[in-house]
């Protein structure tokens, strides 16, 4: 697009060099940047007007395209609303509408679906499909592999290198006959996964998927130890892991080093009728749930659904408008520091001190958790061993690769042996291998009795959880195990399909409940 100058090599877009013929390129390309490029303090109509004028559309032309685009995106009734007051899904549609002004032949969408609810995401995909059918070329960048699976052609990049180019189906079909589900006899899928990964011979990938373990075997291998394997269809993510050289194997050394949490109380996290109101806006409405010891509990939902607010009320970062949050039976409002001492918290973006070295970060965090010098030294050595931080000890936290930042953040959160671990969007923006590695550590912690609470908007990440709560518009609309939720919809749907169906059901009920 001519936004960045290549250091070497040549780019040709629409047959011309984009850096030299910017005018031609800008005229013929529709571009939606990350965050959609909207002016939040302008209304929907003003945004459209601005971009139409910038593209040099005539008044006549403008009126016509506005009509079509508003119709196409369903934004017609919101034209006088400020863009900043739109939901994520509507912003995305408005961004798309702005980039479609002037009917470009080539549309570039940069991570258009980040933080958008699954329904809007599905609608966007449908709209893009329509445009495609009309003959438009569309380039869509994404970190979601399930999205990439739906496109006619893809370019797979890792660490700046091209891994694959072609139709995703071609790549996926190579794995035909190599993907299976394994079920644990006693229902303990986490232990099963650990056992499978520990050995690792002939294994390409293994992840938890609801109550089973999804196993991908190396080429030519049909059997795996003494597992009862049931064949399933491969998906794009399996193929990507295959290209990347398979999932990390072996055992998380956390399993040897961590002391087992022993505590009598059955429910370690309790939310009782939590409400958070900002002015007239309810960020969280009447949220009630209990989390058992040794469970992974997930809060799943799009941005702005209230999951982060619930999460922050539970660790005492936000005061609830009403209701109580209890940690290990303690009301967090009344015993803030005691309750917090039970918590390990890993914030979004990791909240490390970028200008300090890895060692200094470890020392700082062990210090603020109140460990004495000898405990600090032991604990830091232990963490360095477990997470292989040794080669990076002198590096600044900013310079670390993302995966190591994540490990460092996790080790900082674990300094005081907390029985409860809070993870806020732990793996957004992290590649699938690092994500697997991270979840192996988390699984080990859970086996030791640590309770984990996690927020995520990755639908497939929700599969790792024992139980999940679906968040939508400030309410927890459903709570249950991943397979329970899926079964509510149909036998073999994906988590995303289940989520969409449950939201739609909720919306229908809401309309019925409204007085006529």
């Amino acid at each position, binding site marked *: 697009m001519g*936004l960045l100058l290549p250091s070497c090599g040549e780019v040709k877009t629409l047959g011309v060099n984009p850096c030299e013929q910017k005018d031609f390129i800008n005229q013929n390309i529709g571009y939606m940047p990350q965050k959609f490029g909207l002016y939040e303090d302008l209304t929907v109509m003003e945004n459209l007007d601005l971009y139409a004028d*910038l593209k040099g559309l005539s008044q006549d032309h403008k009126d016509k395209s506005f009509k079509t685009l508003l119709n196409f995106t369903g934004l017609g009734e919101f034209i006088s609303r400020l863009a900043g007051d739109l939901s994520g899904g509507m912003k995305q549609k408005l961004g798309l509408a702005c980039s479609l002004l002037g009917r470009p032949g080539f549309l570039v969408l940069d991570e258009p679906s980040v933080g958008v609810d699954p329904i809007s995401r599905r609608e966007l995909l449908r709209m893009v499909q329509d445009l495609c059918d009309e003959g438009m070329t569309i380039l869509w960048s994404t970190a979601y592999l399930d999205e990439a699976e739906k496109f006619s052609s893809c370019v797979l990049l890792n660490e700046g290198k091209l891994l694959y180019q072609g139709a995703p189906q071609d790549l996926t079909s190579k794995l035909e006959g190599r993907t299976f589900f394994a079920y644990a006899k006693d229902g303990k899928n986490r232990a099963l996964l650990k056992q499978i990964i520990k050995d690792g011979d002939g294994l390409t990938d293994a992840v938890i998927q609801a109550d089973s373990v999804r196993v991908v075997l190396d080429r030519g291998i049909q059997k795996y130890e003494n597992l009862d394997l049931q064949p399933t269809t491969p998906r794009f993510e399996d193929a990507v892991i295959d290209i990347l050289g398979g999932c990390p194997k072996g055992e998380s050394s956390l399993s040897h080093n961590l002391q087992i949490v022993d505590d009598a109380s059955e429910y370690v996290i309790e939310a009782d009728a939590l409400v958070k109101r900002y002015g007239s806006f309810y960020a969280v409405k009447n949220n009630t749930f209990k989390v058992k010891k040794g469970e992974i509990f997930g809060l799943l939902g799009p941005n702005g659904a209230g999951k982060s607010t619930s999460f922050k009320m539970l660790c005492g970062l936000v005061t609830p408008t009403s209701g109580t949050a209890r940690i290990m039976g303690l009301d967090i409002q009344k015993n803030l520091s005691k309750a917090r001492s039970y918590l390990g918290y890993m914030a979004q973006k990791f909240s490390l001190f970028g200008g300090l070295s890895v060692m200094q970060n470890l020392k700082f965090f062990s210090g603020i958790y109140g460990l004495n010098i000898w405990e600090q030294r032991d604990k830091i050595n232990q963490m360095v061993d477990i997470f292989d931080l040794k080669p990076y000890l002198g590096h600044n936290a900013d310079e670390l690769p993302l995966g190591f930042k994540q490990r460092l953040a996790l080790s900082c959160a674990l300094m005081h042996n907390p029985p409860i671990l809070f993870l806020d969007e732990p793996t957004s923006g992290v590649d699938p291998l690092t994500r697997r590695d991270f979840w192996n550590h988390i699984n080990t912690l859970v086996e030791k009795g640590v309770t984990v609470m996690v927020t995520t908007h990755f639908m497939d990440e929700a599969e790792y959880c024992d139980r999940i709560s679906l968040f939508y518009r400030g309410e927890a609309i459903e709570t249950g195990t991943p397979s329970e939720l899926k079964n509510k919809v149909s036998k073999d749907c994906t988590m995303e399909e289940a989520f969409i169906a449950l939201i739609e059901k909720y919306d229908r009920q809401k309309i019925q409940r409204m007085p006529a």
Partner: protein
Amino acid sequence: MTRLRALIIKEFHQMMRDPSTLLIAFILPMILLCVYRFSLNLDTITVTIGIKNEDNRAQISSLVSAFENTKYLIPRSYSNRAQMERDIEKGVIRGMVIIPNDFSEKLGRSQEAQIQVITDGSETNTANFVANYSTAIINNWLTNTYKIRGMKKPTIKVVSRFWYNEELNSHWFVLPGALSVIMTLVGILLTALVVAREWERGTMEALITTRITKTDLLLSKYIPYFCLGMVSMAFCVFWCVVIFGVPFRGSYFLYAIVSGLFLLTLIGQGLLASTLAKNQFTASQAALTGGFLPALMLSGLVYPISSMPTPIQFLSNFISAKYFVGCSQNLFMAGNIWDILIPNSIFMIIMSVILYLLIYRYTAQRLD
């Protein structure tokens, strides 16, 4: 042209909807004007001083009473010098006047008679005031005494007169000068955020993929904020003239032209910071420390430039507020003095052109 118009309309919409814009453009200057009017007071104040009279002749008592009869000095008599020194240390008195025992004798013999005036140098302004005022009182007394006696006047006679500000209302010249500091703050704060905001919210990326030119982009920032700045300036002048009663002797038309030039340099500084930083926080910090503080220190409003070391004096040539302080004070108090207005305006024009070119140079058309 359509594109520029669309961008300007957008900028106006954003400006009007952002409450902080109006706060910065109108409420902030109002508060600052009040602060300058009521608290930055360079006028005479009432100061207590100590007097030790060692000369007991009758004619000297009239000198002491001359001190007692002023509005601004409260004399306190001491007989013990050590006590007086303790009081000056404690800050009870701000200066001391010592009349030696041979004072009237020497005067009578037409010799050089001396009076010692000691001031508390830790507060320069007060010290100067006490020294100058005491000298004036003594001289005055001297003249009067000789007149009464019909004797020859003393050899040295100091006559001070204050031009332009006959009533010595310091806010008459502080406020017009303060306008430059206030407008620096307003102009820079308003514009330091606008380009950086586009980068932070990701809208710049969308803008540069449309067919707008750099000139479109820059003018769309200059024009709306220039208009707003001029309205804000008019508002400030209104406050000075109508509410605080500062006389305005020059032409309002000329004042508008110099203000416009000054505003262009400010918008330039703000936009340059914003363009280079691409981040609202850094941009506002850079603009404030690089724009507002030098304007306050080096414009000659508070600290006279002539008493600064040469390198700093040289540096002050790059502060547009310096040129505006000169223009503003002249237009308010003296009228249209072209010898001051023209060179100062030329400097401001040069500065704004250089700033515009710099911004043009650093406005990105790519992301790297």
